[in-house]
């Protein structure tokens, strides 16, 4: 059904500037009908910005956009939708308090003939992609992948000819990812094009037909995926040759540092494990397996039913994050915007907020030291920001993440817990974070690392624990165990 040769979307010389940043610089792409079009690029390369211009959230400064043969001057999200261009954002775009059906037909209640029509049509659409989600279920009660399906269904309900997915996989498990892949293939068969943005290059190679690499607001290259190798792609993304996606594994594991026994909460059942000195311990599991819950419990952020915690052989009580910090722990939380950063505050304030105690004498903060720390971490981590006083909400995701990493580096904790440290972060920045992790263990610290990217865990950790439904189901040496072996334990 696809019409080769015909472009559904043509973007020519689009520019966009934000105060102090040239986010897009003469960007041109052409998306044919019925293809999956991948876009990759470092954090802050301008991928999301381009998509937001296409969907009408931002206005372009200059350039032309042609959709389905028609030149589009200005557009709003809803006009774009009705024209047949829908976008699934990095963050979900659903009303949690309303039902699935109403979310799919949000704003078109009357056109669909009231409550009954909405649910009937939603049911039919969901059935057509083989989903069994109830249309009456509240979206807030759904899992991440189910929400994604609702988003896709919503896009389909508009008869979209182009669906943009901005990092759709960042919160999906591999199982759910497979389902998503199937749906994308279905879309392709229907002649619907997909723009697929991801930092996970495996997915790009698996799903995409054509790929565009962006860097610093420019398109570096656009080619069929088959014509580009992985290393070539990475090289183009970061603008330099990377021999390896991962730095060499460290081997400086010492004696036991932290012992957890019988950790039990509503979701966790009798979790016990040991973290050694100088070790990177990886947690592998599906979303909702309880990895975050384990580390939050250790860190004292959540209440627990029972557990004992031995730190350097001594039983220690950690009832809140403060005590955890005193005991030498640090936590990089899963959701950087909601739990990590204070978005309206400056980069500096965000970096120093965990180490304020040390800068304080008689209750008074030493401002010059604070500045010094801010500058140091910005330089140390290579955070791209106009100044230390810039508010963090204008930073790109990766740079935001670096601010939080910087916060903990400054504190130099014995045990650093990283919950999805590289989620939504580009390859270059990832590499930097990996190097940082190695530096920490080299200096005698230990790391617990949670990640949904299996290769990352396998390449970085000294030991891997698999978690399934709140239980520790296995322990592996990543250097000897195969990925398949580990995954099978993680699935349960």
């Amino acid at each position, binding site marked *: 059904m696809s019409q080769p040769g015909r472009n559904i979307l043509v973007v020519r010389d689009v520019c966009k500037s934000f105060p102090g940043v040239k986010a897009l610089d003469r960007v041109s792409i052409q998306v044919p009908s019925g293809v999956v079009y991948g876009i990759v690029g470092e954090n802050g390369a301008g991928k999301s910005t381009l998509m937001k211009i296409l969907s009408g959230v931002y206005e372009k400064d200059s350039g032309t956009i042609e959709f389905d043969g028609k030149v589009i001057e200005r557009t709003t999200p809803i006009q774009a939708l009705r024209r047949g261009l829908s976008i699934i954002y990095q963050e979900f775009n659903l009303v949690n308090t309303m039902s699935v059906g109403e979310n799919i037909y949000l704003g078109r209640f009357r056109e669909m003939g009231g409550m009954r029509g909405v649910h009937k049509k939603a049911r039919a659409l969901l059935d057509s992609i083989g989903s069994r989600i109830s249309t009456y279920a509240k979206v807030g009660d759904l899992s991440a992948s189910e929400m994604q399906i609702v988003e896709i269904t919503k896009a389909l309900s508009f008869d979209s000819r182009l669906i943009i997915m901005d990092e759709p996989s960042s919160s999906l498990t591999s199982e759910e990812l497979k389902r998503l892949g199937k749906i994308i293939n279905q879309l392709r068969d229907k002649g619907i094009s997909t723009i697929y943005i991801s930092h996970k290059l495996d997915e790009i190679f698996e799903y995409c037909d054509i790929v565009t690499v962006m860097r610093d607001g420019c398109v570096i290259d656009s080619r069929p995926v088959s014509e580009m190798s992985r290393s070539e792609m990475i090289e183009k993304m970061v603008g330099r040759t990377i021999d390896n996606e991962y730095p060499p594994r460290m081997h400086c594991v010492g004696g036991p540092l932290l012992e957890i026994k019988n950790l039990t909460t509503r979701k966790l059942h009798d979790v016990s494990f040991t973290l050694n000195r100088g070790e990177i311990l990886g947690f592998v599991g599906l979303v909702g397996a309880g990895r975050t819950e384990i580390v939050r419990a250790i*860190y004292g*952020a959540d209440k627990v039913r029972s557990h004992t915690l031995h730190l350097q052989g001594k039983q220690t009580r950690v009832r*809140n*994050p*403060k005590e*955890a*910090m005193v005991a030498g722990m640090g*936590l990089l*939380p899963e959701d950087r915007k*909601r*739990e*990590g*950063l*204070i*978005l*309206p*505050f400056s980069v500096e*304030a965000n970096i120093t*907020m*965990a180490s*304020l*105690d040390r800068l*304080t004498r008689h*209750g*008074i*903060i030493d*401002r010059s030291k604070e500045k010094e720390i801010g500058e140091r971490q910005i330089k140390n981590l290579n955070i791209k920001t106009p100044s230390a006083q810039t508010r963090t909400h204008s930073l790109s995701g990766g740079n935001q993440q670096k601010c939080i990493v910087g*916060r903990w580096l400054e504190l130099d904790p014995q045990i650093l817990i990283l919950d999805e440290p590289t989620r939504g972060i580009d390859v270059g920045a990832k590499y930097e974070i990996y190097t940082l992790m190695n530096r920490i263990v080299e200096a005698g610290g230990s790391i617990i690392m949670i990640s949904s990217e299996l290769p990352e865990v396998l390449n970085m950790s000294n030991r891997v624990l698999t978690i399934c439904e709140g239980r520790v189901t296995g322990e592996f040496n990543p250097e000897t165990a195969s990925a398949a072996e580990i995954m099978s334990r993680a699935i349960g």
Partner: protein
Amino acid sequence: MRNENKLLRFINQNLVLLGIIVLVTVTAVIQPKFLMTRNLTNILRQMTSLAFVALGMTFVIIGGFIDLSVVGMVSLVSVITASLINPIGQVGALLCGLLAGALLGYLNGTILTKFGATIQAEVLFITYGMSSVFIAVGLLVTNAETLRIARSTRPYDMFTAIGSGSFLGIPISILIFAVILAIMYFFQTRTLAGRSISLMGGNKTAAYLCGFNINRTMQMVYTINGLMSAFGSIVLMSRVTTATATLGTGYEANAILCVVVGGTTLAGGKGNVLRTLLGVFLITLLSNCMNLLGLSTYMQTVMNGAVLVTAIWLDNRKRL
């Protein structure tokens, strides 16, 4: 061109100041008596009590909360202080009054943290209920009678000095306020405790995960607010020399308005105690100017509301 822009930006950033200047100029031209020293000191005296309450409220709002119980605290503290002069003397009464304010604030903070109220709306209505409770307790204690400090058999010269005395021509109450303001400014900008308030206002979860004790910070904020209300209450009481269980009615709304007009956003995190002072000044000045210009009381209420709505609106436009 450049300079013009700069000027515009300055004006934009200091609308309240501009409003004050315009108001002062217009009033002074139409009614030269406005500039009499006595009038100016009157304005200062008049604003101090509200300024104290607004100062406390600034911290609450920076912390991301709100407090409607200040009127209850102001009245209850005045009742407690006035009725303690006879039995324990004026110094004791003063200290007890301040302590009582801090305790009432602490009570608020404790109730809120125990219930786990984190959304501003929840806090709003719980403190609204608390206000009712405080006022009712004050009424039960006094049986709605007005206590007059002049009726005490012990000396009460310290209270009259706070209310009407001057030092080098400056009202004593404003001197006390200046000292407290300086302390509070330092507290807000330079101390860890002050910073923890704005961090909490910015993002509670993030602050919590960085080792800040949110419940304690919240209690601290409300305790400060209670203490400031107590200061406001004592200043007000010594000025009018009476204490009732309804003293300070309307202070809750006025204090919030002063804080917001001063540029502290209700979203929390951002704010400045010095700017609040400008807000208080504008509001106090407004009623004085209206009275001097001979506007009817009703017209004043209209103008008050209109100025507030406009001030907030303009301030908001600037932020857009």
